């Protein structure tokens, strides 16, 4: 099953092609932000411009979409660059905040690697393009908030060049913005798929082992005994996944602690014999 996908965009016009692509449906606003959902646990929020709005929208999206622990998070949006051509898309290898100086380095685990750029998040629309950066207004807020909710590998930023020294941002309208994003849906989808695959792997590692839910529903466990049970069932899966739990382990067992002790002894025997 695909891992959840959480998308953040700043502008309604950026959202439009993505909403169509993933067949998302508008829901009631979440915390004042336009919010969309679709099949396969895909959800999108429109933050409005600025890093604070982006950070607040990430938190809102997380809760509104069900607080999934291992979701893929993507910030998709526009950026200005000194000379890179309008329409070019890059995945951020580094995101820095001009105000605080803090930086994030979303790990690039893709083979082959996509085009990568360094993004600088600024407070106002950049018109001078002094540095070699891709200038945006949301990525640092997005990274700051999303990296608290997911492992850093699952937090990715994709920026599409919308303006440069020869084509300043003044001429951008909503149709142009939507067209720029629509032209890069292939890259957006590829990054989303790859990040969701990583998220699925982390989700699988964290999932309860077989029999856990049944046993917890059948016997009484304290919180610490539940953790022990989870560990013991993991051991069972590691040592002998194809061997069913012997019925005598459960026979006459009333409390979780007792089952854990029986499991421990059985698994130790298996481990020494393997």
């Amino acid at each position, binding site marked *: 099953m695909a891992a959840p996908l959480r998308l953040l965009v700043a502008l309604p016009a950026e959202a439009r092609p993505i909403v169509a692509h993933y067949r998302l449906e508008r829901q009631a606003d979440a915390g004042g932000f336009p919010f969309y959902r679709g099949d396969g646990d895909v959800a999108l929020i429109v933050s409005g411009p600025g890093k604070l709005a982006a950070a607040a929208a990430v938190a809102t999206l997380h809760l509104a979409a069900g607080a999934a622990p291992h979701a893929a998070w993507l910030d998709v949006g526009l950026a200005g660059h000194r000379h890179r051509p309008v329409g070019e898309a890059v995945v951020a290898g*580094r995101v820095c905040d001009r105000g605080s100086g803090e930086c994030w380095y979303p790990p*690039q685990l893709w083979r082959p690697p996509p085009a990568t750029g360094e993004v600088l998040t600024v407070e106002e629309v950049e018109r001078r393009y002094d540095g070699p950066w891709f200038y945006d207004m949301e990525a640092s807020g997005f990274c700051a908030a999303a990296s608290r909710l997911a492992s850093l590998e699952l937090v990715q930023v994709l920026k599409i060049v919308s303006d440069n020294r020869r084509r300043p941002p003044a001429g951008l309208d909503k149709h142009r913005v939507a067209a720029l994003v629509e032209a890069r849906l292939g890259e957006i989808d590829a990054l989303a798929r790859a990040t969701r695959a990583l998220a699925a792997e982390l989700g699988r590692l964290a999932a309860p082992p077989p029999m856990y839910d049944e046993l917890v529903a059948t016997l009484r466990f304290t919180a610490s005994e539940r953790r022990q049970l989870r560990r013991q069932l993991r051991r069972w899966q590691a040592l002998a996944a194809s061997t069913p739990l012997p019925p005598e382990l459960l026979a006459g067992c009333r409390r979780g602690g007792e089952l854990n002790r029986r499991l421990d002894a059985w698994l130790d025997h298996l481990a020494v014999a393997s």
Partner: protein
Amino acid sequence: MITTVYVEEEVREHPRVRAICRRLPKAVRIACRRYGEIFNRRGQSFRLQKRQPALILAAKRRPRVLETPAGYGVGGERNYYFSHLLNCPYDCRYCFLQGMYRSAHYVLFVNYEDFFDEVAEIAGAAAGESWFFSGYDCDSLALEPLTGFAAAALDRFRRLPAARLELRTKSVQLAPLRARPPLANVVVAFSLTPEGIWRDLEHGVPGVERRLAAMAELARRGWRLGLRFDPLIYRRDFAARYDELFARVFAALPLASIHSVSLGPFRLPRPFFKNLLRHYPDEPLLAGPLAEHDGMISYRHELEREMVGAVTASLLRHVPRERFFPCAA
């Protein structure tokens, strides 16, 4: 293949950084202020990063050379270690690095000369010999074609006769050793486990046969060798497996070339073990007959005693006791 290289601003113009970047022309290059911003950040997955580790090029600040834990050594009185590299291209399931570091990226400290200056300072400050172990947080030779570290170390240690260097490896990257006459103050130590354990646990590591061939070549060239049977891994038939390994090893290598042999049971500090378990919950090694003693996870006492006793006895049928150094650390 390394596809991303992070470069600390401080070493951006370092000649070694330029040379390494030339060797990785297709890699994306990203600037960073300090390597710790990437490597030490919380909330990243070692397991996911191990799929495609990046290379971080950085400068190591003092202290660069540290005393080893008590009990770590091969007979010397003063023992130190240094790490020009953090992490390793191999993926051994028992390796403590996976539990110690938050990131699987390689950090290469390019200021090798500063390490060697500190080694010279320490070695010069004491009478007699001092040992320096280079493969503590990495493999000394596995990334040699990229780093050139061992070549630089050998050239410097040639001029430091009171300093003893151990290069520890599982690789067969012999180029810097082939290119130089053997040095009396250098030991090239190879870690080995029985064939089946190598197959199960040492992902990406050259096979036992290839490592033995590399060792035999070094022996022919006059280099002194170390044998490191560490960690000992339990299997029901562990005694037979280690007997067979020792028979192969000592048939392939002349005893005269062997400087030292060490052996140590599988053990990990509890926090490292917990991290490993989180990364690899389905790994049979971590589900084995283990117990906690004084904050360390290792095989249950009686089993560990049985393993160490049997394997030591088998080993001492091949090597004289004075060249044998059981690991206490």
